[in-house]
């Protein structure tokens, strides 16, 4: 029996086999969507570049050489050099580590936090709902960047504090999303049925309601990644995120804006990196939406 036949067996003999079969179908659905594959490849490349940065970079990203400042792209400096003579290609390669760190940390904080608050508010209702949603409203009332700025200023500059500041400002839409999803599912018969089985509220929340909200939160999170990268860059530009000389893409764009007309590559190259990675996350988000819904199969 081939592996494929085993995975797609009509009558799986064990739960493991059934789960692997579902995972295979999910992967197949993702791979059959060409745009999602492009997104997946971009994110995969980002991870590879970040992991293998020392062997991919051609120069030391921090090495300054004023004699070689603002050189156009050439065989020696693939993407040119910046105002301090540093190799832009190497800086972008090392910058992918920062980008990936920011993206992962924000996702890990924002997703579960927003999900938990939204699901609890939606399921509990009453006073709990009102208190949690008013807190959410307070956070939503401020423009995201301004609030992140305030937090970053209060916590001090640095990439970790920037992540915390972004996370604090980014969770409310997720709480709203999860709450709305919970409210539509709460009254359905299958929730009544599991409550009738004697399930505790915790079991209903974790096992039955949260899985229904996860996919929309994951999709939204992937689609939001571009914005998160940009806010991180904005904080870096204002001196409240990644600090020089760390090769954060947003900060690199900001530092290149003085030379935009004559030395276009200084700002453009990291800008392209941001654009490509954001696009990758967007495409992946779209693909995931199809995969995470077993009804689509």
């Amino acid at each position: 029996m081939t592996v494929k036949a085993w995975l797609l067996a009509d009558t799986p003999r064990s739960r493991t086999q059934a789960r692997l079969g579902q995972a295979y179908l999910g992967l197949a659905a993702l791979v059959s969507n060409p745009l999602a594959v492009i997104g997946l490849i971009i994110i995969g490349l980002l991870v590879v570049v970040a992991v293998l940065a020392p062997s991919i970079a051609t120069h030391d990203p921090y090495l300054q050489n004023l004699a070689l400042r603002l050189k156009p792209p050439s065989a020696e400096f693939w993407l040119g050099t910046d105002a301090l003579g540093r190799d832009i290609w190497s800086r972008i390669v090392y910058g992918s580590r920062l980008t990936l760190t920011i993206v992962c940390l924000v996702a890990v904080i924002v997703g579960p936090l927003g999900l938990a608050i939204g699901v609890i508010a939606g399921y509990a209702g009453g006073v709990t709902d009102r208190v949690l949603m008013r807190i959410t409203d307070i956070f939503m009332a401020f423009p995201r960047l301004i609030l992140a700025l305030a937090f970053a200023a209060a916590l001090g500059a640095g990439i970790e504090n920037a992540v915390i500041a972004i996370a604090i400002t980014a969770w409310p839409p997720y709480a709203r999303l999860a709450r709305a999803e919970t409210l539509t599912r709460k009254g359905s018969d299958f929730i009544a049925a599991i409550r009738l089985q004697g399930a505790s509220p915790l079991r209903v929340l974790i096992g039955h309601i949260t899985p229904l909200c996860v996919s929309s939160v994951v999709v939204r999170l992937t689609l939001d990644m571009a914005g998160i990268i940009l806010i991180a860059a904005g904080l870096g530009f204002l001196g409240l995120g990644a600090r020089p000389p760390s090769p954060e893409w947003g900060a690199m764009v900001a530092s290149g804006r003085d030379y935009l007309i004559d030395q276009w590559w200084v700002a453009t190259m990291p800008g392209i990196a941001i654009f490509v990675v954001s696009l990758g996350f967007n495409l992946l988000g779209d693909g995931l939406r199809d995969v995470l819904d077993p009804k689509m199969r």
Partner: protein
Amino acid sequence: MITVDRLSVRFGSALAVREASFEVAKGESFGLVGESGSGKSTILRALTGLVDIAGGTMILDGEALGTKRSRRFHRVVQMVFQDPYGSLHPRHTIDRILSEPCAIHGLDRPEQRVLGALDDVGLGPSFRFRYPHQLSGGQRQRVAIARAIIAEPQILLLDEPTSALDVSIQAEVLNLLARLRRQRGLTYILVSHNLAVVAHMCERLAVMNRGEIVEQLTAADLHRREAGTEYTRLLMRASEGYDPALASL
């Protein structure tokens, strides 16, 4: 086994159930018949604690039911919902759906129970790892019945278990329910708008109209067409099919 005394349920300002009283003995099959909106499903939901009651008492096995239901209650009483498309979790496999009651009540040998329950309702093991959306309405309702019986309850509350199914499947599901009751000595409370279904499944029934129980009679009374109230006679005539004279009423 179940005593409902002067039960009232209020939705906002409307009284959905008004002082309904009935008793169901152990092993009996009791029917609640009425038009939609007559409050029959609400009585079931009140029994299970899904809606709050405005007055009256409900007694199960000599124990009054309060606002909270104990874990033991859920072992004894289970329910089958009307709409098999809405009563199964869309992201859970049949296996997961049937395993949950075992996990909640800490039952032993969950795998065998799942396979046994599937077998009991006439679904093979091939259905075990399917999702609800891969099943037909009748198959889904069988899964819902399997879920209700897997923890071996004594009482099944059936809320229009066949009205969402097409006619040929209805008979199959009703026969399945009748067989399960015979085999396991279950007590049924069956809610239906269909007098024929209730007459087929139940020994006794109550007729409801606008939140009130207007009459209680036995299936034998029904077969002899001995109804005490005008409303029941109207329902009986309606169940015989379309009648132009009745439609103009």
